[in-house]
């Protein structure tokens, strides 16, 4: 658990230049968005892996009972971009679906509004989208085990969304997408001499980042490629867990996702690895800056489980 209880703006110790971050959270609008629990997504004709094998890929969409935030991402049988927790999507017209995908934030609370667990609460833990299977986008939600066991595909969900416009005071050039105040203030970010020190489980170079370039930054995700198997050990990907905070070096997500030398993006591991060419470990992107204001600091505790105090 990070020092979220320290009063914002406290300077300590003398001369270190250290202080916890402040945000404009009191000025954010809070709006309701409606979604529903999505069905599991599969392709009956198999998908082709990077080396031309046929694979029945599972783990995307639906209610995943045994993939949870904090668990290891590798080793799940037939898993391919497998998502922890419950996958949801918006309801209504395309514009309304996009509102659900874009304007909700990781850390926002959701409430089930129909079915056997009506009234139960959960927490948004990521956003994930892909072309195959299903050409869909998901907002991922964590529920406790009791709620999970009684939740049904199609159950309605209401999100009290509060994230659009969030800024860290003094850092207007650090873009925040899909990040609630609870997440951003809970990440243990320190403001030291004009830089933001961000605890992360792993730093990843842009050379292994793939699918997701060219997409908009406030929905879906970007992938750390796992189609070149030696990368998995070389870059420490095998130790990653669902919900880990990671830094992507030389990647910007300011106005869309792209390579930009010197930029840093901070995100959350939202899916497991992939054997599809160019795809891999999903990262929901949260913070982005072009010029070195975000400085990753390695921390084994940099996981949503700790930050959002998930049950």
């Amino acid at each position: 658990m990070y020092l979220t209880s320290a009063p914002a703006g406290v300077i300590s110790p003398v001369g270190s230049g250290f202080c916890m971050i402040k945000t404009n959270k009191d000025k954010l609008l809070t709006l309701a968005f409606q979604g529903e629990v999505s069905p599991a997504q599969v392709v009956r004709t198999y998908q082709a892996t990077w080396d031309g094998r046929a694979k029945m890929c599972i783990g995307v969409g639906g209610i995943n009972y045994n993939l949870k935030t904090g668990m290891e991402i590798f080793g799940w049988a037939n898993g391919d971009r497998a998502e922890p927790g419950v996958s949801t999507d918006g309801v209504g017209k395309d514009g309304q679906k996009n509102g659900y995908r874009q304007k909700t934030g990781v850390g926002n609370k959701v409430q089930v509004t129909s079915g056997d667990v009506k009234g139960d609460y959960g927490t948004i833990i990521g956003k994930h989208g892909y072309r195959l299977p299903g050409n869909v986008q998901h907002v991922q939600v964590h529920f406790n085990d009791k709620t999970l066991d009684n939740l049904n595909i199609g159950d309605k969900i209401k999100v009290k969304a509060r994230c659009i416009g969030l800024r860290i005071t003094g850092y207007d050039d650090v873009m925040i997408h899909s990040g609630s105040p609870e997440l951003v203030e809970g990440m243990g970010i320190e403001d030291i001499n004009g830089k933001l020190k961000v605890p992360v489980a792993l730093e990843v170079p842009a050379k292994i980042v793939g699918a997701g370039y060219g997409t908009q930054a406030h929905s879906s995700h970007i992938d750390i490629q796992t189609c070149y198997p030696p990368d998995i050990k070389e870059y420490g990907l095998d130790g990653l867990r669902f919900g880990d905070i990671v830094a992507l070096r030389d990647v910007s997500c300011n106005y869309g996702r792209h390579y930009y030398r010197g930029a840093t993006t901070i995100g959350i591991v939202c899916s497991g690895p992939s054997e599809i060419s160019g795809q891999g470990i999903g990262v929901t992107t949260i913070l982005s800056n072009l010029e070195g204001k975000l400085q990753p600091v390695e921390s084994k505790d940099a996981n949503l489980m700790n930050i959002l105090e998930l049950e």
Partner: protein
Amino acid sequence: MLKTNKDRLIETAVEGVVQPASGRGFSVTWDGTPKNSIGTASINYTASVGDPVYKWVDADHVEPDVTIQGRDKPSASDCAIASLACIGNPAKVVSGDAKGSKGVFIGRHAGADDLVWFPDDIKEKLTLDDRVQIRSKGVGLVIDDFEDVKVNKCSPEFLEKIGIEVKDGKLVVPVVAELPGYILGAGIGYDPNIETVDYDIQSTCPETNEEFNLKDLRLGDIIAINNHYDAWGRGRYEGSVTIGVIVHGWSDFAGHGPGVNPILAALPGKVETRIDPDSNIGYILGIREKPQ
């Protein structure tokens, strides 16, 4: 001369219709600037194969010559032309004032979509609902003794004219430029199909634009992408080489840039490159004269 299985390829008619341009108003570029872009779809009277990818005013993803789209399925990417048409295949107008006129298939830009070159006088006669038929041939093309090198979207005639040589058990391919895989962006990992999808050399990092002289690239250039193996999708593999053809122009939208159709992909040790500034499909297919 390369030996191939060209005599065993199935030749099939596929059709597309000239695709009108659309408009979405302003979109936001990588640095937050609004841009009302032009250049995709329609009949492009200005930009043709061999012209620069960069220089056109307010252009984004500029497509050379004439853009057509299959109509036999609800989505253009699911249509026969998307998977079967290959660079160098002959095209023929089958309706309207230009009926009977001949052109050449020059690549596919997923999104707007299939690209055909016609002479300037034929462009003048075309309208935005003319039908174009392609004699598609090339799917399944394999180079003898290089069965593990994936050939994609190449007619046999085009493949044979590229100037590929066999040396010490490797294919040596003439290319205009070698680029590192890490600057490839939009379209990477999109799906495992290489026939229907292009992917973009990102032109939204000013430093790498200069380092790799991306503004000097031309529509139709053949380039090498190092450390990518685009045989079953588009993605990273250290030591691999993918050869591609540039099918559309520059972009200011994050993660986008000149688009590439992969045409050859090999695991390490099978393909080498040599730099040749004239390695452009316009010259190779005889539809553009080399500058003197």
